[in-house]
Structures are given as C-alpha cells and as structure tokens.
C-alpha cells in the first residue's frame, strides 16, 4: 500500500545505508537553502524598482558568487567521495554468496563451506492476503547471518539484470560473463526486499529479491539443513 513513508528512503539495515541517508539529508538541506536563496533573489529583482542603469560590473560580487558555490560543492563532494570509497571496500568478508540473474528469477550459490544452490522465484499474490507483499515475496529466501561482512558476487546467465537491496544500500549490475563484487554488513534481523533494477524483459517486474537476516547460529542451522 502506498503510504507517506514511500516518499522517503527505506529504513537502513546496514551502516552504509545509514551513512547514505545522512548524506541524502545533508545534500537536501544544502539544496533547500540554495533554492530558498535563489527564489528570494528572483522575487526581489522582480519586485524591486530601484535599478542602477550605470552599473556595469561588480568585482566583489562576482568574486563571491564564484567562490561561495565552489565551497558549497566541496561540502557535497567530500562526504560523497568518502561514501563512494567506503562502499567499494570489502572488509575481510567472512563468506561469499553468488547471485545469478536469469530471465526471470534469481539463483543463489553458497560454496564457502558446503555447496548449495537454489532458485528464487516470485510467490504469486493470492486474493487479499494481508501477511505478504504483492510482487515482492519469493519462494526461497537468501538467508544470511547478520553482523558479519558478506561479499556478494553478482552475475547473469542471459541478459543484464541488476541486484538491488535498498535498505542495504546495494545495487550491482548483473552482466553475463562478468563477476561484479559488492559487500555489506546487515545490522538487524528481518526480511529485506529488493527488485531487479535493469530492464531485462517481459517479467522484469516479477523477479524480486528477499534477504532473510538471521543470527549466525540460525544461519548455520539453515545451511546445514539445506545441504543435507
């Protein structure tokens, strides 16, 4: 259902997403101040009748409107670059998972300790079922341990796809013949939803991603049961 929370970013489930939200808010604040200032200047130039027809240049003013925007831009680029490089980092991952985009489902492979692979298809929405999300649920969840660094390898088997989890701040293109790496750390338990983010064909909208974030013990239990 559409609620007002859809206007915002999803609540973060990883430190990176937390920082991304802070960065978003910070940048929005700067944009709002610029907008307010520009609107004020525009209004005052329209309303003001005191015009100096002999003013041809204003060195101080020109200097200021060059330096001030440059400084403002610095306040945006610095945290932006910091985040960009933080997101690129893989901090000694404890495990690797692989996800492969297919037309039209995701398949997952765990191969660090036991070799497990499974497909993850969308669960169709039945009638007025209030305990599930329409077009977001899958039959097999990607179960992962929280509080540990996880590397994800994203690739595709047929066409371009994109593996995305908004609440983790992750989006990686799935390209056939190429392995893209990303990493994340989930800091709370729960279900995290995402969707394919690269137009990949007729059922592009129907290949969602569900991560089930659980404690490490439960994760080990789960993977043991799956490998039997």
């Amino acid at each position: 259902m559409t609620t007002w929370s859809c206007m915002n970013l999803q609540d973060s489930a990883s430190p990176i997403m937390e920082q991304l939200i802070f960065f978003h808010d910070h940048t929005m604040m700067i944009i709002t101040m610029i907008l307010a200032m520009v609107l004020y200047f525009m209004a005052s130039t329209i309303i003001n009748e005191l015009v100096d027809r002999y003013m041809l240049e204003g060195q101080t003013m020109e200097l200021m409107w060059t330096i001030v925007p440059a400084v403002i831009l610095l306040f945006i680029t610095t945290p932006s670059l910091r985040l960009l490089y933080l997101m690129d980092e893989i901090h000694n991952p404890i495990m690797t998972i692989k996800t492969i985009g297919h037309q039209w489902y995701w398949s997952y492979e765990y191969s660090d300790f036991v070799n497990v692979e499974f497909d993850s298809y969308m669960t169709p929405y039945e009638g007025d079922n209030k305990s599930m999300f329409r077009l977001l649920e899958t039959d097999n969840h990607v179960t992962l341990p929280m509080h540990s660094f996880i590397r994800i390898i994203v690739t595709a088997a047929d066409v371009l796809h994109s593996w995305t989890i908004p609440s983790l701040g992750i989006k990686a293109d799935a390209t056939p013949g190429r392995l893209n790496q990303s990493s994340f750390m989930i800091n709370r338990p729960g279900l995290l939803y995402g969707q394919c983010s690269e137009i990949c064909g007729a059922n592009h909208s129907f290949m969602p991603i569900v991560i089930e974030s659980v404690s490490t013990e439960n994760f080990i239990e789960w993977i043991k049961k799956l490998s039997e």
Partner: protein
Amino acid sequence: MPSLAVMASKKEVPQELSTAPFDPRFPNQNQTRYCWQSYVDYHRCRKLKGEDYAPCDYFRKCYESLCPFAWVEKWDTQREENRFPGKI
C-alpha cells in the same frame, strides 16, 4: 560482534569457515579475473606439484568461492576434452 568463525567453533561445524580473501591484484568491482586466475592456478599447481600437494587447495578454495558453478563445470569439461583456453 560475533564472527561466523567464532560461533561456528562453538557449534563444532567440521568445515572451515573462510572465503577467498581480498587480493590486491584485483582491487576493482570486477572480480572475473580473480575467479579465472584462481582456477588456472589451481590446475597448474596440481600439474606442477602433483595431485596431493595440499597448498594447491588455497586456489581451489578461491575459485570455488568466486566462480559460478556453471562456469566451473564448463571449464572442467573443456579441460577433459583438451580444449581449455588457459595455460595449465
């Protein structure tokens, strides 16, 4: 923050819980070459040092963690049929 390895030792899971580490030769998002190089290195290592040489397993661990199963299967058949493009 409990790491997977610590928790696992408590539960006595027989498998070793580790994954392919960061390799400074492949610092980018694109890890295709890491997977490929590990696969080639593993088989080259086994060819040079013999099938039972334990340190070769490091490369096996890396390519198993990184390569999709389908790729490994494809390369295995290529090696069996003597048409593997890499230098082993």
